[in-house]
């Protein structure tokens, strides 16, 4: 079993885009681990060294690699702390909305009828409102905090999964192996978990990976307009929002968080793209599964 699994992972890493995505992500993760453990600066440590340019030395042993911000905090340390925070928020969002969307999609697709119509109409309404606007409305009701922002974004993205899962359930529901399981007298729950779910999982995970970068963009955007993380939390959107006010004095506190955000989003997109191609049998035939 494990050899099948390891071959599967080797095959996935053989796809160029997935490999690059994973390499970038792992490097960023390792770097942020080192920053958290070894950096001589705390992420919220204020100093007199305001707006020092990148690589300038103070009386500290370590230079300020990416300079300091308007409160003399080390931009390098903050940017990598923010990597951990933003990626965790993204993961929390896709877990939350993915699970709820999965349940709604499974129930809706498997039961059909009135339950299906009602649930899907609700999903239609949610999806017809621009996601970011709805997230703003929800976050504003809940109050400005990073956790509330996560909840708001999660709610907004539920329909993506619910619709996807429902569609897949509908296409699998009438297939022979599900009919056979039903004839054999298996319970609905067992059919869903043992027979339908495994069919859905790969596409579901691909979608979740693609949504991860959207989730991060939303979180940063909400924090940027003041509805997410609050000072002194190291968060990309908030850091850019603060640094924007001093852009004429110092560009680095705004640019580096943005760059790291870009790299992170790019690597999740690469992985998601690669997974999608891998799962798409038409594309797999043409490229032999190795892009």
């Amino acid at each position, binding site marked *: 079993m494990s050899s099948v699994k390891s071959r599967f992972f080797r095959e996935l890493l053989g796809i160029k885009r997935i490999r690059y995505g994973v390499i970038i992500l792992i490097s960023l993760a390792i770097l942020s681990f080192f920053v958290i453990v070894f950096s001589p600066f705390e992420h919220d440590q204020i100093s007199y060294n305001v707006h020092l340019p990148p690589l300038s030395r103070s009386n500290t042993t370590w230079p300020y690699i990416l300079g300091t911000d308007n409160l003399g905090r080390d931009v390098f340390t903050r940017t990598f702390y923010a990597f951990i925070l933003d990626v965790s928020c993204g993961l929390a969002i896709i877990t939350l909305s993915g699970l709820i969307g999965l349940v709604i999609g499974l129930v809706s697709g498997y039961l059909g009828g009135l339950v299906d119509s009602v649930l899907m109409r609700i999903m239609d309404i949610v999806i017809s409102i621009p996601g970011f606007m709805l997230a703003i409305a929800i976050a504003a009701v809940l109050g400005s905090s990073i956790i509330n922002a996560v909840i708001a974004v999660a709610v907004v993205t539920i329909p993506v999964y619910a619709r996807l899962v429902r569609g897949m359930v509908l296409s699998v529901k009438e297939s022979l192996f599900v009919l056979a399981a039903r004839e054999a007298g298996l319970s609905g729950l067992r059919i869903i978990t043992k027979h339908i779910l495994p069919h859905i999982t790969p596409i579901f995970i691909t979608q979740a990976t693609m949504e991860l970068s959207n989730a991060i963009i939303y979180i940063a955007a909400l924090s940027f*307009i003041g509805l997410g993380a609050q000072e002194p939390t190291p968060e990309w959107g908030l850091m*850019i929002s603060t640094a924007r006010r001093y852009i004429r004095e110092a560009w680095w506190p705004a640019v580096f968080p943005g760059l790291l955000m870009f790299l992170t989003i790019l690597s999740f997109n690469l992985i998601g793209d690669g997974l999608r191609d891998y799962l798409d049998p038409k594309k797999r035939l043409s490229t032999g599964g190795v892009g």
Partner: protein
Amino acid sequence: MAKSIVQYVFYRTLQSLLSILGAIIIVFILSRVLPGNPAVAILGPKATPENIERVTREWGLDKSYPEQFILYISRLLRGDLGDSYIMGYGVSKLIAERIPASFELIIFAFIISLALGITLGALAARRHDTKLDLTLTSLSVLGFSFPTLLLGVLLLIFFGVNLGLPVGGRLDPRYSVKTYTGFILIDTLLSGNINAFIDALIRIIPPALTLAIPLGGLLLRLSRNSILEVMMQDFVKTAKMKKLPEKVVMYKHVIRNALIPIITIAGLYFAVLVTGDIIVETIFAWPGLGRLVWEAVMLRDYMVIQGSVLVVSIIYITVNAIVDILYMYIDPRIRE
């Protein structure tokens, strides 16, 4: 043909109206589940006992939810989004004042991205599988995976700090221009003030580019693929065999057919621009609807947030419906 065009328009309109009703219901529910007394949330720091009583009466907050909803809808139908006690104006008035600025920015950005995307996409398609094609397609991928936040900041630094051009706002306050259309580029021209026009043009370019580059990148890839697909079709091959000049083949046969999917997808993204607009307006202090949302968040003015969400949603749903109907009108194949 299953449905006539009139039927299609009817159903699509009905569907949009239902979506708008859904949006209204969601915004209504959100405004009533606010923690604590909704009247206090509406009033913000101005919540004196007299004000609370007034707002409670005004919105029927002491009545049942269905009654409150009917009151809410009947006010909306009269175009009344309530009053902002924090900014001191009617919310509808605040929003109406800001809409022209946002529309001007979005339309300007849309034109830039269409022009860039289609021209470069056509170029990439004509030189497909060359180095130029590879460069252009790579640039397009880079363009649309750039987060708006980073792009906006980079352009702000480039135009404002490196080039030293005026950025922020729509027009230098020392120019006063009479309002004819609400579109500052047109108003400055109409009043014959060339200096003001140049100032306005310089100021609109960085925020418009921030919105246009990601969309332009997407349109580039889309146009390239769409044009390539048409170029491979039989009628184009026939035209080439007839030894028609390449330009005639390209413009009369290829681009015209390739434009259908490009225009529709561009139309759908027009609605997406409306959302990205909030970030861009905040970065460049552009006094439009997006900036209003940001100001409302800063002041904790829930009435304005709620009103803006509703207005933007209605615009979004309407534009989507119009694009769908246009698409159906252009391409009869979907009618079936």
